[in-house]
């Protein structure tokens, strides 16, 4: 299996802070990769580099064999890598339907600005795509609701649905379940993952809940201090003593019988 996404020697520094160091890995097409790590471990920085929001200080990123290191985010999106955000990024003054129309219209565009000025944003084929997508992501009941008034979970789903509107081949989800109650998390991930599987999308998702990681990921990357300290199947990664000590804290017997505080 050849890699759809491949990074090598990735490093990012902010002044004296090293947010990412020496990250090298390959992701095969259609794999679902979970990313774990404490706050500040560099997970978002990793996502930001791949999607062009940050330029790596060192190293390279290849997507389908093409070097995409340092390209602007819009070019990377057009090539086929989309993302959702840790804090949902939607357009608060627009309805769910209009948010989706904007995303779909951009995705369907040919990149020419003249045609963008002539095609209607509510063209029948765009509206049809949007109606299918909001059914798929189960947000159709909120079609005409303003995004600013959406419940947190629905806003997260909208953010992801907007990212998927561009028919990406790789999708990066930065903490899709953050800010959502424990009861709702599984339901949200079920909706998202079945929608993505239906479209054969390669997924990388950042997640703090180990049950969710075990349930949805084929492979788990453990981040610590800017680098990947474990990479394998969920069982392998979560079973490693170092991961348990530094990240999950689970199943680790400390000398005095306390649980590790590094949740």
């Amino acid at each position, binding site marked *: 299996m050849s890699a759809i996404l491949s990074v090598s020697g990735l490093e990012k520094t902010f002044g004296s802070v090293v947010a990412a160091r020496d990250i090298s890995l390959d992701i095969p097409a259609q794999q679902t990769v979970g990313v774990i790590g404490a706050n500040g471990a560099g997970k978002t920085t990793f996502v930001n580099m791949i*999607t062009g*929001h940050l330029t790596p200080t060192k190293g390279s990123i290849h997507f389908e064999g093409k070097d995409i290191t340092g390209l*602007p*985010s*819009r070019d990377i*999106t*057009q090539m086929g890598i*989309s*993302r959702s955000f840790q804090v949902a*990024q*939607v*357009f*608060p*003054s*627009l*309805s769910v339907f*209009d948010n989706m*129309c*904007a*995303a779909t*219209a*951009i*995705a369907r*565009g040919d*990149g020419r*600005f003249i045609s*963008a*000025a*002539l*095609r*209607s*944003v*509510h063209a029948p084929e765009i509206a049809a795509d949007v109606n299918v997508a909001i059914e798929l992501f*189960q*947000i159709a*009941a*909120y*079609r*005409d*609701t*303003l995004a600013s*008034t*959406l*419940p947190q979970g629905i806003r997260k789903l909208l953010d992801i649905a*907007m*990212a998927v*509107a*561009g028919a990406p081949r790789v999708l990066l989800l930065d903490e899709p379940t953050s800010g959502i109650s424990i009861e709702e998390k599984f339901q949200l991930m079920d909706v998202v993952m079945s929608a993505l599987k239906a479209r054969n999308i390669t997924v990388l998702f950042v997640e703090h809940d180990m049950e969710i990681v075990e349930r949805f990921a084929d492979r788990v990357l453990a981040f610590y201090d800017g680098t990947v300290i474990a990479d394998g199947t969920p069982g392998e990664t979560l079973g490693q003593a170092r991961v348990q000590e530094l990240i999950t804290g689970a199943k680790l017997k400390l000398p005095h019988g306390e649980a590790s505080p590094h949740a």
Partner: protein
Amino acid sequence: MLSRANLIGAVLFLAAGIIGFFLPPWLVSLLTIAFANALVVLGLIILWRAGLVPFGQALYYCSGAYTVALLARWAGVSDAFVLLIAGGLVAGIVAFLTGFLLARYREIFFAMLSLAMSMILYGVLVKTETLGSTDGFGVDPPHFLGYAPHGDALGFALYWFVLVVCAISALVIGVYFKSVAGALAVPIRDNEIRVEFLGISVTRLIHMKLVIAGTLAGVGGALAAMTIGHVDPNMSYWTTSGGFVFVTILAGAGSVAAAFVGSLVFEIVRSFAFAVLPGFWQMTLGIVLLLTILFLPEGLGSLATRFRRRKPDTKPVATS
């Protein structure tokens, strides 16, 4: 294309044209200026929707006006259609060039940079003796495809000419507002980074808006130059830009119609206040703007759409 709004618009423009025959020439000339200025306001509405308020739109207005005046005086061009297109084109090119810089700025920096650019043109015109310095110079009456009216007939011809240009502009900008590039104004105002991550360049979208708005301002300036029969550097002065922003806030950004409603109300209130309360006309305008902001925060234009539009549903319909 022939939606209900377009049909209503066409009827209103036609009605305005016919009413012109029953109005005194001074009022016709006032309405002509009001409609010409409405085009500048329409351009500002395009930018305001994306959250941008330029305080130097007079740069393009003045470019359009001086293009007409220069062509008429030194190139002997007298056809109104040629002059109009030239005015719009030159202003559009100026907007395209300044846009490379302006499109990268936002908020107060955008407003001030745009103001600075307009003041450069003002400074140059004031210092240019051959163009009459601060006095400016006169513009000969235009011809319309060979028809060369004088006196009141010229006033009516210009009025009709301006109405036709406004109707065409309203139709085109109406299409633009519904287009992908036009509809992305609110997303740009709300969240630029998200727009970029969806795969389109915000800078280029804004650049396009600047060119459209600049062209409209140039067309407005060209029409004003023909109507007034004179151009001077004040057309690029910051108070001229400020006046257009004033009318835009009065009008609101809700629709194409708002530009025309706002501009007409502004000119009528100003002339009325000037005639009745000569010493207090600025104060009267200030009060009108204050009342509009307090009671019609979406501008006078929202009166036009208020009765037409269904209230958008802002409540969640159901929980899944």
